[in-house]
């Protein structure tokens, strides 16, 4: 894939370039500050972009804002946002324009090289990758609406919200794919969500439900 990287820390940037090129990807551009991100994305139109939330000049959420702006200009552009910490608000802002091809991960996850590359290719393919910590933040905050679920169903919902497909969920929990879809069916029924198969829709539906819980 052709990839654009926006990261101001030289060490981490070089690390990412090394990691991605060694996996056979091509890094077509790197941006070191907020204002450079959007032009780089518009010029190269990459297959995916990896963005840091905090970028110069202000070291606030320039990367996140650039990501939101880029999605407005190039709808569906796959973006994987990396952050030093997780913040529900950021996840909600990223996903507001649709969950297809959106990822939001803690920077730590890069060290799990395999999982990181999986997440990136999932995002590039139009899927979703949410950090488990974002999901657990959402889940603990919205304890109430989830009280009807069994512990296993809650586990499945958590993995589903991260953007994993049934196969991967089955592997993670060491159960059969059939029982995964059974659990998912039960979760949807209990939460009153319409049943769909595609991964990002499920994330979107779950998020919409969880966010609705916050407003009600």
């Amino acid at each position, binding site marked *: 894939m052709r990839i654009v990287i926006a990261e101001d820390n030289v060490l981490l940037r070089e690390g990412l370039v090394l990691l991605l090129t060694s996996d056979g990807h091509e890094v077509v551009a790197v941006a070191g500050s907020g204002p450079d991100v959007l032009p780089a994305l518009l010029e190269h139109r990459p297959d995916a972009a990896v963005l840091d939330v905090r970028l110069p000049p202000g070291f606030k959420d320039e990367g996140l804002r650039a990501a939101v702006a880029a999605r407005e200009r190039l709808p569906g552009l796959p973006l994987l946002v990396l952050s030093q910490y997780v*913040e529900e608000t950021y996840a909600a802002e990223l996903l507001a324009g649709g969950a297809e091809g959106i990822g939001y991960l803690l920077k*730590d996850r890069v060290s799990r090289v395999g999982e990181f590359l999986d997440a990136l290719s999932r995002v590039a393919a139009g899927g979703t990758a949410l950090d488990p910590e974002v999901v657990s933040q959402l889940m603990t905050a919205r304890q109430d609406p989830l009280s009807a679920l069994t512990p296993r169903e809650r586990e499945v919902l958590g993995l589903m919200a991260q953007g994993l497909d049934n196969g991967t969920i089955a592997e993670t929990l060491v159960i059969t794919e059939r029982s995964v879809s059974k659990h998912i069916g039960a979760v949807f029924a209990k939460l009153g969500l319409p049943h769909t198969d595609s991964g990002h829709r499920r994330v979107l539906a779950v998020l919409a439900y969880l966010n609705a819980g916050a407003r009600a």
Partner: protein
Amino acid sequence: MNALLKSAADGTVRLIAALRTALPALFGLPVLLLFLVLLPLLLPWLPQAVRPLRALANAERRRAGRLLDREILEPYRPVRGTSARQGLALLRSPATWRDVAWMAAHGFTGTCAGVVAIGLWPGIPVSLSLPLWWWAAPEGSQSAFVTIDSWPKALTMPFVQAAVYAFVLVWLVPRAARRQAELARLLLRPTRSTSLTERVEELTETRAGALEAHGAELRRIERDLHDGTQAQLVAAALRLGLADRRFDTDPDAARALFLDAREGVEEALTQLRTVVRGIYPPILSDRGLAGALRALAGGQPIPIELDVSGTGARAPAAVEAAAYFVVAEALANVARHSGARRASVTVRRAEDRLAISVRDDGKGGADPSRGSGLAGIRRRVAALDGAVRVHSPDGEGTTLDVDLPCGS
């Protein structure tokens, strides 16, 4: 007419009530004078001797404060040392001499005013009835300083006198009652210099508290980084070193060590995030106080009504961090203890202060002296010279009001 009568009656009641302090002041004066004469001998007993004087002055502070509808604070500051030293300090304290001045002034004027006010009311009917019995009085009766010895005088003077009494009652008595309270305030309130001294002492105390809290915070951060993160990283580096040595001979073991090392690094990162969040929440620098509070409110298990429209320009980082932690702690308390179904958070910038209010509709009864969360809030706010008020009647929910100076 009714209103005039009422204000006259109110004034009288107040002047009579003032007798409760005026009479002891009057009768205490000779004792006080005697004490002052013998002062060189009695100096060590001065701390005991001022007690009744202060009790009397405090009673007057409460009375006059109620009347003026503004609290009159005590000007006394604690004295330390041997009783002679305390006596000397009391002798030098302006508060003592102002109390004495008040005692003399109030003893005379207060007693006179009270007695006159009592006498005026029956005085009117007595005056008006004078034409009926003046001739029976043995040596002639006085009215309006005139001896009544003829009918023309008897039919004019008592009415003049009654009119004067009525005028005094209606016009002078209410004003006298007010002047009396104002005199008490003037003499008994803390002077500018004593309130400044008090303020300096208070600031010294809160500054000491702030330094203490800051020191404890630094030690905690150091401990967290040193015992947690740093140790984790050392262990990870150690594993990498071991893995390097075994790489050629035992690749499987080396691989296991690599994985261990990675886990250690991840653990260290997680701890580091917690430490950073404890120092200064990253969302605060990203989004400012309003944005950070919005994020905080969104993550609560119960709906939070948030009003941060009045936060204005950015406050100093320490104030914003304190405000954030106060709201976070308060909401955690609400979620944990109150049983509330909803809560509201209001943050306003009024001039150079940040006013925070957190309300819930829970079961109330929060005790600031017990809850560790509330104690933490108090410490944090006191360190910034702010104020905390907790209003938590049983069954009526809890309101926490915090006032933080922005130091501009």
